[in-house]
């Protein structure tokens, strides 16, 4: 896919087009996986890629340098957040499976990123609760996805969702509490 197509996808995502998001997600995932594989294959041993550099490089490759629009970058990060959530969930499942069946995969994309959630949090349980929050309050669910899985700042999250930073702050602050209670306790009425 040509950079300008990706840039258009990003613009459509910015306009709230869900189909564009679906189209974009596997692109980002594939590109990151490809880069990670290349990294692992030590094709370029002199080129130390940090995870951030990896994402940045994926962005440049996908969007090209024509698109210097910062908003595009925010949407890209938004897509990447969705993708990272899936990566983490898949990883957690695979890890559980490995524990169960006693085999371990070769190095995965997840390992390459070096992203492991805090051991105190069961990421599958969190994901499950987040799904529930999504149903209750979709915007708030999205804020958590961007902040927690995507690592977006308050300002970036605001840009990505087209809401004010103050709103993001409130959504995030209250969502954390809701999620913890949902994960811990018996279901609330």
């Amino acid at each position, binding site marked *: 896919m040509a950079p300008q197509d990706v840039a258009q996808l990003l613009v459509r995502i910015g306009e709230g087009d869900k189909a564009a998001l*679906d189209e974009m997600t596997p692109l980002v995932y594939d590109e990151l996986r490809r880069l990670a594989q290349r990294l692992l294959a030590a094709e370029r041993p002199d080129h130390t890629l940090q995870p951030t550099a990896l994402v940045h490089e994926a962005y440049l490759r996908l969007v090209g340098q024509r698109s210097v629009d*910062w908003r595009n970058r925010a949407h890209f990060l938004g897509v990447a957040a969705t993708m990272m959530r899936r990566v983490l969930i898949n990883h957690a499942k695979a890890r559980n499976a490995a524990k169960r069946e006693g085999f371990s995969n070769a190095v995965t994309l997840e390992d390459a990123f070096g992203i492991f959630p805090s051991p105190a949090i069961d990421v599958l349980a969190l994901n499950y609760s987040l799904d529930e929050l999504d149903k209750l309050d979709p915007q708030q669910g999205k804020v958590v996805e961007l902040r*927690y899985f995507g690592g977006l700042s308050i300002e970036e999250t605001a840009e990505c969702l087209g809401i004010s930073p103050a709103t993001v702050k409130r959504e995030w602050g*209250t969502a954390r509490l809701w999620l913890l209670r949902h994960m811990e306790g018996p279901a609330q009425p």
Partner: protein
Amino acid sequence: MTAARWGEVKTVLASLLETDPSQRAAELDRLCGSDSELRSSVESLLALEQKADALLDSAGAPGAAWRAEAPAPETIGAYRVVKEIGRGGMGVVYLGERADGQYRKQVAIKLITAAHPDAQTGRRFERERQILAQLEHPGIARLLDGGATAGGQPYFIMEYVDGLPLLEFCRRGPLGVSERLLLFLQIADAVAYAHRRLIVHRDLKPGNILVTAEGQAKLLDFGLGQIIGGQQPGDEITQAGPAPMTPAYASPEQIRGESYTVAGDVYSLGVILFELLAGRRPYPATTNYLDLARAICDADAPPLADAVDANAPHAASLRRRLRGDLETIVAKALEKDPRRRYPTVDEFAADLRRFQEGRPVMARKPTWRYRAARMVARHRIAVPAGALALLLIVGFAAFGWWEARRSERRFNQVRGLAHAVMFELYDAIAPLPGSTAARALLGRRALEYLENLSQEAGGNRSLQREVALGYARIGEVEGDLAQANLGRVPDSLESLRKGAGILERLAAGSPGDRGLRHESLRAAIDLARAYGQAGQFDAEIALARRTVASAEPAAGAQPGDAVATSDLEAALAALADALINQKRYPEAIASRERVQDLARRLVSLHDSQEAQRSLALAEKRLAALYGVTGRLDDCRREYELARTIDEQRCARNPQDMRAKIDLSFDLSDLGWAAGAMNRLDDALEFHRKALDLRQQAAQADPQDFRAAGAVAASMRKIGLVFKKMAKPREALAEFEQAVQRYGELSRRPGAGWATVRSLAETRSDIAETWTDLAQAHATAAAQRRADYLAAAGEYEQARALLAGLRDQGKLPKSEWPNVDGMASLAQKARRNAQ
């Protein structure tokens, strides 16, 4: 908890979180009043605050790990980094000072992160740095130094400009028209200065221009676009992409990706002047890049004065001021055609000075004749296709056939030219990348002429035949376009319908003309298949039946006529495919059995590679139908026949990738038959052989859609065998590979609905496998839940894919129940997860 209730709780909670802890109790009383349920909900959540800080902290989140920015370096070159002052697509800008404290001069440090640090980039930056260092002008932020960090990232040390962005400076003034013009002339002079040193800016925009407190305008980032783009003549090919640009200020040629010249800077300056004077840009602000690109390339900029907001202060007097010469000058800078703009920025500036001094300006209002010419040309500019094709299209207009007189000589000339365009040029430009749209346009134009002639000529049959064949070709190309743009489907069908209709009439009028009959039948078959591709299955079946009936008499009367025989064969095959699309298998078998007989007859009439292949295909297609209707022994027999033929073809020519693919289909289907007969080890063996052949073919030609699709299909089939063998892990691995490939394929241009359906089917396979796993893990509750959730997710994705097809009218009606089927499976899995 309902969404509404959560909304209330959230509001109170948010407000309390922002309240000092000592004040919270009072605030809680105030906000909850007598609603004790609300109060207890809020309190229970609030109690988790510290725990949330510990567990769900954004800094400790997985996202933070991969977003963690490298900290700002302490020094870059001989400069100490003070703070970050900007961030953009190219990199980061820091405020810096001399690290050795020699003198306390502040600088801007631009660290370029948008380039891959390697030796070649390094050399290019070095060369450019030397060029940019020559720019010494009060209107240009000076390049002081540059180099590369230890990590190889290039950086520039620029003069630090303490000022306001151009537009903000003008607003704060607020500056009047004359003052704005003076400021703009400063900018124009700086750009002209650089142009004299053969450096273009490429990304001129108000955000790149700062104005100091003393009123000096300074251009930033001069020439950086060039460095990033690396597109100077003589430069090696670099992996860096196209130069950055800001679409709102880009010229039409820049939007189209053509080479950048001084005229591009003239245009961007025109946009800046427009915005400075009228308060907005010439084209409507939109975030949709395509709309903007279209406007820039096609739409006329409004007259400057008309663009002034009627509610702006002194709008009426401002409009009067802008009307006339200023309007004409700006319009000249904004011409679509670079040759009609000011040839240099100096001349642009000189005209503005003439205006200020009250002397006559050089710019002229465009004449009506020019405007009319542009109206005609406009539709052609939008299609960035092979340059040859564009040239030809423009050439057509210049040739002026439209006014061609009706004399005999003219008639033949026009006909000859149209014929050459339609049947020779058209094929000649077909291999050019991106020429599909141009071909459609070219063909349409030629067709208009042919049709016009045909009307003038009355009943000229050979001319009508040319028109009909023209429609058939256009329909075909429009069909290609339709893959990318579904809006074109009706165009394509209409063209094919017209062509087939004319040919049918002509063939009926001269029953003895075998060539015409052949063309007419083939056009009808193409149309029937196009109906099927457009999802109009009833029309497809009806037309295929009618075509079979038209082909029968000739094939029956002349069994030795290979053309008539193969026409009937093709019509029957189209009918069978149409029936298969609707899962009407017994009827399809009847058609296919006849196809097979005819294929045998063709081999006996004229034995050739192609005839052998057709026979093998006919056997396979029939075998597949036996298979789906449960006649497994018949099925295996037919496949073995096909396999024998295809193995001979492969042996004769090992480089024949098509024969390999064909053989892979035989094997794959034999694998299916073995699986259906529960001989799973055989099945795996067949599928693995098939996959191997397919991978060879796909590697030989990565563009080959069929081969790539076949690889994915094989992976899925191997997964299905594993699943049947109760090896879910192996199955999942294969399915995931297939999903990845199908996903990639479905995004390729030319991908049809069937690819998306395959993707959905594979997702559903994955869901079933997760369900198997969940059932196998009856004891581990948490794991079981996770497996069921994974299954539900996959079913939901499958449902979304199928629903998308259904909503676009592409899913056969017989498969519509699958959409709800997937939904209920997803629900069931979710219930099981509870």
